[in-house]
């Protein structure tokens, strides 16, 4: 896709640890178009956060090694110098972090933290930068922004702080916004508000968004496309509808199964994916999901390619050796079928 805003190709990140070399990100590729919302979904340890951090050049361990490319508007991000990255960070690609409680400097006034970024990239005089900051805070829905701009982070609630983070991220009108689990640390009602706010802002600014989360439910009404990651690899990728209504990979089934749905009676026990994610250091050969997959067969000892399997949907790709029919059959006999829609809802 030549018109992609951000194009990631075969990204690999590995860490040398005491237990040996760990491949945290193992050949991830995706494209992001302008204005699009891409959700990257997976359990913790699946490599989704590392991927997001790596794009910003924030994976700073001296033991890390990077391979592959990530082009932003033709600029290579992987291996770029600190100076090049600095120009991109905040200004072109901005990031919202998981924990708003710890992501703001506790001893600086929030206004100053935002002004700092504006001045870094745009060199505005103090007064103007401050005005912009107040506007931003108002835009993300902070009441009495003009007074609160001089408050310290601890004087805000969690949800308000995340709004501050969003204002901070948007302060230089970035083209790409990476949100790393932006709502995980917040309680449910606040989550909804924050997501709503992000959706509105995307409409207003037209920024592309990479939303990193472990919760498929969160992405249901904001994402355009979804990439499901497991143990460092993308195991399934497709549009929101494709993933939600026609999931191909057994791992995706599991994720979907763990969503509590309000439109169905609550089952006695929420189905969970059996077993634990593999330790990054000793992952199984072939399909990484193999040990936990109820449908494992001999073919699974080989690495499955990320390919389109569903007829007529070339952008819906997955890594599973099962044929489409087999998947269909097995998917339907899953107990409880929570999170899975029946076929008639599936798009043609």
């Amino acid at each position: 896709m030549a018109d992609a805003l951000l194009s990631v190709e075969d990204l690999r990140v590995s860490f040398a640890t005491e237990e040996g070399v760990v491949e945290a990100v193992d050949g991830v590729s995706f494209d992001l178009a302008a204005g699009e919302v891409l959700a990257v979904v997976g359990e913790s340890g699946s490599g989704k956060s590392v991927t997001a951090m790596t794009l910003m050049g924030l994976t700073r361990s001296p033991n890390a090694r990077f391979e592959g490319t990530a082009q932003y508007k033709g600029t290579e991000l992987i291996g770029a110098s600190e100076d090049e990255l600095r120009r991109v960070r905040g200004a072109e690609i901005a990031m919202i972090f998981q924990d708003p409680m710890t992501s703001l400097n506790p001893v600086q006034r929030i206004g100053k933290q935002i002004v700092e970024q504006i001045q870094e990239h745009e060199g505005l005089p103090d007064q103007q930068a401050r005005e912009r900051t107040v506007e931003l805070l108002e835009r993300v829905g902070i009441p009495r922004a003009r007074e609160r701009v001089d408050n310290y982070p601890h004087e805000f609630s969690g949800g308000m702080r995340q709004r501050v983070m969003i204002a901070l991220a948007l302060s230089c009108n970035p083209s790409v916004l990476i949100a790393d689990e932006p709502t995980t640390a917040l309680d449910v009602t606040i989550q909804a508000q924050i997501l709503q706010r992000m959706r509105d802002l995307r409409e207003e600014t037209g920024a592309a968004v990479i939303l990193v989360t472990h919760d498929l439910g969160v992405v249901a009404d904001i994402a355009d496309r979804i990439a499901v990651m497991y143990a460092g690899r993308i195991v399934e990728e497709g549009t929101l509808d494709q993933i939600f209504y026609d999931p191909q990979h057994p791992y995706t089934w599991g994720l979907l199964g763990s969503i509590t749905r309000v439109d169905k009676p609550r089952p006695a026990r929420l189905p969970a994916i059996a077993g634990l994610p593999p330790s990054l250091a000793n992952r199984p050969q072939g399909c990484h999901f193999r040990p936990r997959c109820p449908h494992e067969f001999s073919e699974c000892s080989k690495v499955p390619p990320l390919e389109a399997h569903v007829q007529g949907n070339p952008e819906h790709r997955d890594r599973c050796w099962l044929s489409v029919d087999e998947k269909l059959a097995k998917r339907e006999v899953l107990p409880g079928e929570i999170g899975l829609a029946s076929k008639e809802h599936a798009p043609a």
Partner: protein
Amino acid sequence: MGRFIVRRVIQMVLVMFAVSVLTFLIFNVIPNSDPAVRMSGRQASESTIEAIREEWGFNDSLPQQYITTMEKVITGDLKSQFTQLSVGKEIVKGLPRTFSLAIGAALLWMFVAICFGLYSAVKAGKFADRFLTIIALIGISMPVFWIGALANYYLGFKLGWFPNGGYVEFTEDPIDWFYHLILPWTVLAILFIGFYSRVLRSNVLDTINEDYVRTARAKGLGERQIMIRHVLRNSMIPIVTLWGLDFGAVLGGGAILTETVFDLQGVGQYTAEAIGQLDVPPVLAVTMFSAFFIVLLNAVVDILYAYLDPRIRLQ
């Protein structure tokens, strides 16, 4: 704020009371030696000794003696048993010296420790870091009086680069004052440099991994700005509090060894001599004075702390 001050004053009084009682007990209960006999000289007659006992109140009960002594402390009337000089005046005389030693050393150790600690943290795991770590550990492993005596003799007397101890009043000759204090400052600072640079290094390393530093990086700030505005400032907070406490302790006569080795004749050396002579009043006064400074600096540190870290409010 008002409540804070009241609490601190109560604490100060409590601690000073405890210190004074303990000091009083140490010298009046343990040694089994009669202070009147000590004071009377070698050839005194029994009547002279009895007169001294009467005059100084050694015949009173211990609690009564304590009360009498404390009355003298409060009215500034306390006298050394050994020299019969006013204890208050002697402390006041020693204070500028002790203060000169403390302030210079404190600034020195703070400055050097910041440089060492920051550099060590930035180079964590590299050769420079390991080298500085060993240097810091050597610093905290050296007895102050040993390195002081060696420096004083070799650098001061043998090579003549520095004065061989002693003190010159600042008002008399500021340059000579500075010159006389270089060695004592350095020697006193060595231990603290070792300790502070270790603490700062680990604080910086902790802070570098804080989420808000990642945020700062994500904002596109330069490495220098990040280090100074976000990392250093936050790592310094605990150091500043330690600094206040140590400064208080040194000011309150805690630099006994350095003062003695370099013959600075400050409060510490005065105390050392008084202890040797089992001279209760000066020791009593200095321990109280010292506790006073420690508690006072504690309070100052808390105020400073609240200023540096807005999450804290004085209660």
